[in-house]
């Protein structure tokens, strides 16, 4: 049975209180449902599993030490993901200081329209397709090929199903920017994945492009 949002919040508030009263076990219970979310956020920034795990651990420890400063205006999950995102960015800066600038300054021009490149029809995709390693790998590669400003939004919105508002809060950008970046990311993902997903992965057939011009 799934909890409603308000039940979840009440339950989390209870757990937070217990942790602040010194019950460490409660912290484990509090963060456990979000482990995957934390990990996915971390890897969307740092890109490799070992760094992502380190970031995730640092983020959770930081959340523990700062728990008393958590204000219930935001969701606990949003707060946790925000800490993770900041930790991940810090890690990236430390590892690649020469890229420091490019982490914050969006380089791809955001105003330019993205023109879809592929107009072939897609068959509906079955969820069994996802069980195949090469399919998961292809999706991960496609995700990694997005510029970081698009990838971050994409992972929070579409992979983790966070709202536009939550994503904007976590990344410190406007909701409008979230929408524009998400559009770009989705169209680009579609173009990147189209050759594999139009059915040839499933049926072993060659990809048939239908070009309008």
């Amino acid at each position, binding site marked *: 049975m799934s909890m409603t949002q308000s039940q979840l919040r009440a339950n989390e508030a209870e757990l937070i209180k217990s942790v602040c009263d010194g019950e*460490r076990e409660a*912290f*484990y219970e509090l963060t*456990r449902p979000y*482990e*995957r979310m934390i*990990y*996915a956020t971390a*890897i969307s920034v740092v890109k490799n*599993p070992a760094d992502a*795990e380190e970031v*995730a*651990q640092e983020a*959770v*420890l930081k959340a*523990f*030490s700062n728990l008393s400063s958590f204000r219930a205006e935001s969701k606990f999950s949003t707060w946790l993901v925000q800490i993770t995102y900041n930790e991940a960015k810090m890690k990236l800066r430390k590892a690649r200081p020469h890229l420091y600038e490019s982490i914050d300054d969006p380089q791809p021009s955001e105003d330019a*329209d*993205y*023109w*879809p490149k*592929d*107009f*072939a*029809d*897609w068959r*509906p*995709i079955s*969820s069994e*397709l*996802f069980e195949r390693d090469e399919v*998961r790998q292809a*999706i*991960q590669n496609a*995700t990694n090929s997005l510029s970081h400003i698009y990838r971050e939004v*994409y992972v929070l919105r*579409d*992979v983790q*199903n966070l709202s*536009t508002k939550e994503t904007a809060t976590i990344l410190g950008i406007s909701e409008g920017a979230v*929408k524009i970046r*998400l*559009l770009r990311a*989705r*169209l680009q*993902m*579609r173009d990147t*994945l*189209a050759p594999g*997903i139009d059915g040839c992965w499933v049926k072993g057939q060659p990809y048939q492009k*239908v070009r*309008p011009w």
Partner: protein
Amino acid sequence: MATIEISCLEVWREISNYLDEEISHEMRERMEAHFKACAHCNAVLDGTRNVVGLVGDGRLFQMPEGFNKRLYKKIQGLP
């Protein structure tokens, strides 16, 4: 009242908002009229919807084996 036509480019700009149902009723009607007539935009819509559904599946980022145990250990090791 006739629905005002929109171009493919305008449709692409809104396609993500369309999927998220974050557009006005009026824009939705215009886009739907466009999708009926334009196979290419229909293909873009279907493909984008597929991509959204596929990655939202939750299995994309598998946590490394033992992730949970190691994290627990870290928490226990806190002063």
